[in-house]
C-alpha cells in the first residue's frame, strides 16, 4: 500500500519511514492514522489522520502533509527568497535568481521540494535543466504548491 509513497520519496532522493499497518487507503487516497484512530474508525470515513496523497491513473500525487514529512528528511530541497516564495505559491515556476540554496537536485528532471526561508515546505517542482548548465530562465518547474488550497475550493 505504501509503494507509491516510497517510489515518490525515491524521486526526491530520500526514504520515508511509515508504519504500513497504520496506512489506510480509501478509494484512491492514502491516509496515515494514529493508534486511537486506527482503533476507532470505520470504513465509511471521508478523511482520516494525515492525508498522504492519492493515486490516479497509476500516478501518485503527494499531499502537502507528506511533502512536509519529507522536508524533515534529506530529500532534495530548494530554498527560495521571499519574492519567489510568493510567486511560487501563485503557481509560478522558479528562476535561478530567486534561489537561496539548493540541496541534492542537480540534473534535469530531478524532483525537489521547495522551501521558504523558514524551511517550511511550499510544494515541489522539477529541474528544467542540469544545474551546471549556464542557462537563463526557469530552473525549477512548479508541479504543486500550497496555493492549491485556494485554487481547489474555487
Amino acid at each position, binding site marked *: 500500500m505504501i509503494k507509491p509513497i516510497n517510489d515518490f520519496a525515491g524521486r526526491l532522493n530520500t526514504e520515508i519511514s511509515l508504519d504500513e499497518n497504520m496506512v489506510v487507503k480509501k478509494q484512491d487516497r492514502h491516509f496515515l492514522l*494514529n493508534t486511537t484512530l486506527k482503533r476507532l474508525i470505520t470504513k465509511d470515513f471521508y478523511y482520516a489522520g494525515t492525508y498522504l496523497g492519492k493515486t490516479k491513473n497509476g500516478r501518485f500525487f503527494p499531499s502537502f502533509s507528506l511533502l512536509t514529512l519529507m522536508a524533515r528528511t534529506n530529500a532534495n530541497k530548494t530554498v527560495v527568497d521571499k519574492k519567489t516564495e510568493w510567486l511560487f505559491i501563485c503557481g509560478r515556476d522558479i528562476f535561478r535568481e530567486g534561489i537561496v540554496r539548493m540541496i541534492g537536485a542537480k540534473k534535469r528532471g530531478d524532483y525537489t521540494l521547495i522551501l521558504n526561508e523558514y524551511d517550511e515546505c511550499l510544494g515541489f517542482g522539477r529541474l528544467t535543466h542540469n544545474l551546471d548548465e549556464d542557462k537563463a530562465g526557469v530552473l525549477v518547474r512548479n508541479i504543486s504548491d*500550497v496555493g492549491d488550497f485556494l485554487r481547489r475550493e474555487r
Partner: protein
Amino acid sequence: MSWFSLKRLGNGSQEGCLPDDRYPVQAPSFYELAPNLSLMWGKEFFLGRYSELGWKYETVESKQAIRVNSMNIDKDKLVKRLGSRGVRVRKIPFLDDGYWVSESRFSLGATSEYLLGLYSIQEAAAQIPAALFTALKGKTVLDACAAPGGKTVQLAQLMQNTGAIIALDIDKHRLVALSNQLERCHVENTAVYLADARHASQLNLKLDCILLDVPCSGNFTTDKEWFGRRTLKDVERNAALQKEILREAVKTLKADGEIVYSTCSLEPEEDEMNIDWATNELNVQVEQIDCYGQKGLTDVFGKKLDSAVVNCKRIWPGPTQGFFVCKLKKRGSA
C-alpha cells in the same frame, strides 16, 4: 395576544422540524397550529425582543480576527512575520491564541503563512467554545457539526494532535472544505464522516467530550439581510433541531463527559431555553465557565428558567459577533 403567548400555543412535539436545507425533515404540526409565527419577523420585531431581554441595539462593525495555530508556530514569531508583511495584529485579551487584525494590505486568506497552516481566520467569539473543555489531551472527542473546520482544528491544537476527533457534517461539499482545513493546518488526529449529528449514536462510540456548534439562525452582525430573512418560525425550527442534536449527543457521551454547546444566534429559544430544556429532559447539568460574555438569561419573556442557566454565557454583538455558549456535564450515574 403577544408574540410569546402565541408561541406557547404549540407546546406539543417539536421533533423533526425543518431547520434549514441541510436537515430535510417533515414540517411539524406545531406551525400549522400557530401559522402567525411566520409573520413575526423584521428588524423592529427582533430588536423589540432584544430590548425586552435587556440589550439595546447598536451598530456593530465586525472585526476580523485570526487564531494562531500554536501547534505549528510560536505566537510571537507569527506576529513578527505578519508584521514584516504589513499585517498589524493585536492580542484579544480574552483569548489565548486570538488576535484582532488592525491593518492588512491584502487578503489574510492568501498569505503563505495562512496556506502553511500557521493561523486560521476565525471570528473572536467562535474561538471560545473549543477552549472550554476541561482537558482534551488523549481524549476521544466528537465535533458533531464540524464544517468548515475552524473549531475542529482548534480542538486538534488543544489536544496536541493526540487522541481522536470524530468530525461529522451533513453536507458533502462542506466536508471538502473541512478536509482542506485539516490538511492545511497539519491536523493528524481527526476522522471525518458524512453524517447527520442527529444519528451520532450510530457511530457506536462513547465520547469523552462533544462539541455542539449547532446549526442556528445566525445573527445580523454577520448577515446584512438577516432581519429581512428570518422569522420566528425559523428560530423555532432551529431550536427543535438543536434539541434533537442535544438529545443524541447526550446518548453518545460517557458519564461525567462534557458537552460544549454554542450558537451564533441571539434568540433565547436556541440558547438559554434549549439549555433549560436539556437540564430538565436530559441527564446533564450546566457547568460554570470562565470566559468572555454575560451571564445566561434566566427570565426570558416572563418565563423563569432553571437557575443553573445563569452559568451560560451570552455575548451580545459588540467587539465580537453575537454568540451563546455553555458547558454541560453528563451526570455520573448515566
